[in-house]
């Protein structure tokens, strides 16, 4: 099976986010960047699909500046075979412009499955996967927590409110990976060494034409200072009173 997994470089989920002085971007100072956690599920699933099929190749693709090379190496260290680095031409892509660049790069690539993370933890979109699949004309199942592939078909489970949808699709198809799909492996020392020698193809990303204009980026609205009602179970009646009379929620 030939599988492509898309990976993105994002700030660590515990990073402090400070809006830069332009009011439109994040100040990168002091931020540690990681491989998007959901993309680890995508890479892991790609490796498992290939291992189960017994043959094939796992390609990881990242769109981004020069720093994304490091993100690709991390995925290669997990066991992917080769990388594609789409060099970003200008910042400020929105979801559709990102999807257009990824779709343009994969248009002529023969693949059986195309995997994404459910969302990138910087822009919290959950959009690029469905958009790229649509542009490539691939059937798509998003937010997948279980995937079974056999006889040119895939059966995917995706949680919805109060249950799960089971969707069957013919391959080639695209999927986005949700927590629960698998436990991503750690890169071994051997894997990290091997990753250095694996081929990474670099090419410019097609120019992006974002449709959304970012007007402003700002810190979250402050929450009114809360109060400690008291200590231990003696505080319970006071809390219940506040919930009834002040908050009026019970």
């Amino acid at each position, binding site marked *: 099976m030939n599988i492509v997994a898309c990976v993105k470089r994002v700030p660590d989920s515990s990073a402090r986010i400070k809006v830069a002085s332009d009011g439109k971007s994040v100040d990168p100072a002091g931020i540690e960047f990681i491989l998007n956690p959901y993309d680890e599920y995508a890479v892991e699933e790609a490796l498992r699909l290939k291992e189960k099929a017994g043959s094939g190749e796992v390609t990881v693709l990242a769109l981004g500046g020069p720093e994304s090379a490091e993100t690709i190496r991390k995925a290669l260290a997990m066991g992917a075979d080769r990388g594609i680095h789409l060099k970003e031409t200008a910042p400020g892509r929105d979801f559709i412009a990102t999807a257009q660049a990824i779709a343009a790069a994969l248009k002529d690539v023969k693949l059986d499955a195309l995997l994404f993370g459910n969302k990138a933890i910087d822009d919290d979109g959950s959009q690029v996967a469905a958009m790229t699949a649509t542009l490539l004309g691939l059937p798509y199942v998003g937010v997948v927590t279980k995937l079974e592939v056999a006889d040119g078909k895939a059966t995917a489970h995706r949680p*919805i409110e109060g249950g799960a949808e089971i969707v069957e699709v013919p391959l080639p198809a695209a999927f986005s990976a949700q927590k629960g799909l698998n436990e991503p492996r750690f890169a071994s020392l051997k894997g990290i060494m091997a990753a250095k020698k694996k081929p990474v193809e670099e090419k410019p990303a097609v120019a992006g034409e974002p449709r959304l204009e970012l007007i402003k980026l700002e810190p979250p609205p402050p929450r009114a200072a809360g109060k400690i009602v008291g200590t231990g179970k003696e505080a319970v009646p006071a809390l219940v009173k506040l919930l009834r009379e002040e908050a009026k929620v019970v």
Partner: protein
Amino acid sequence: MPGPVLVFIEQREGKFKQASIQALCEGRRVATALGVPLAAVVIGSGVAGAAAELGAYGAESVKVADHEKLKSYANAAWGRILAKQAGGASALLLSATSTGKDLAGHAAAMLGTSVAQDCTELRVEGGRILAKRPVYAGKAFATVAVKAGPLVASLRPNVFPATAPDPSKKAAVENLPLDAQDADFRAVVKEIVSSAAKKLELTEANIIVSGGRGMKGPENWHLITDLAAALGAASGASRAVVDAGWRPHEEQVGQTGKTVSPTLYIACGISGAIQHLAGMSSSKFIVAVNKDPDAPIFKIADYGIVGDVFEVLPALTAEFKKLRE
């Protein structure tokens, strides 16, 4: 003349989802501010019946794609139907439910546009819709507007208020043709499995009681579910608890779990890590019970009790039970 505001209305077994009604009411406010009509879109099989009732929330018309082939959710087919209708619209609004978020991307890609996902505020300024949405797991908020064409936006459930229905108002119903290609039916939902227990769904609940590692083990979870039962609430969990196997994935609240905005969120033995806050900080009221007065959860809680969950939760449950009697 700018086009209408369209709102996609989700239904299950013929019942409209509350999150969709909230989106429709917000659509009414946006359409009024823009001075354009408001239309609802309903897709499914055997769904035409109740459509006219959406007029009660301010829809002037309802576009209904009612067809046997649309009985089960097929993202590409549903996306194509929406995209076809939204071409000349000012906006296409959906609710940020599992279906809404999925569908938004399909419709937008077919329109060649992007999506303002999981918005918490819409406003109209100078004839333009500005959409505000959390990014970086709620650590920042981005305000965006579309450069040209319709704004496709999904709205976070329980954030936008629903107005009281006016049942005397009926909408004009327009039937849509099945505007989809065969290839759009390659990904069709074959089956929906309901969660084992008939539980109240987290993202739809008005009150949520969540437990963290401070609960010490799965054997103590009845303290959470008893309190939830006394309040008619749903129960949730932190990731630490889910990863330890105490609770199922579907109960996880946070960055890698569910995003919830209930009226009341009670966090019990949860430290308040930023990734947990990402999933619940837009709750209207937050209560924290934690034995550590310095736990970060107290920074965002409206009301806190410093104390042992094993002592405080039974007392809370008893107090709420008394209220109900």
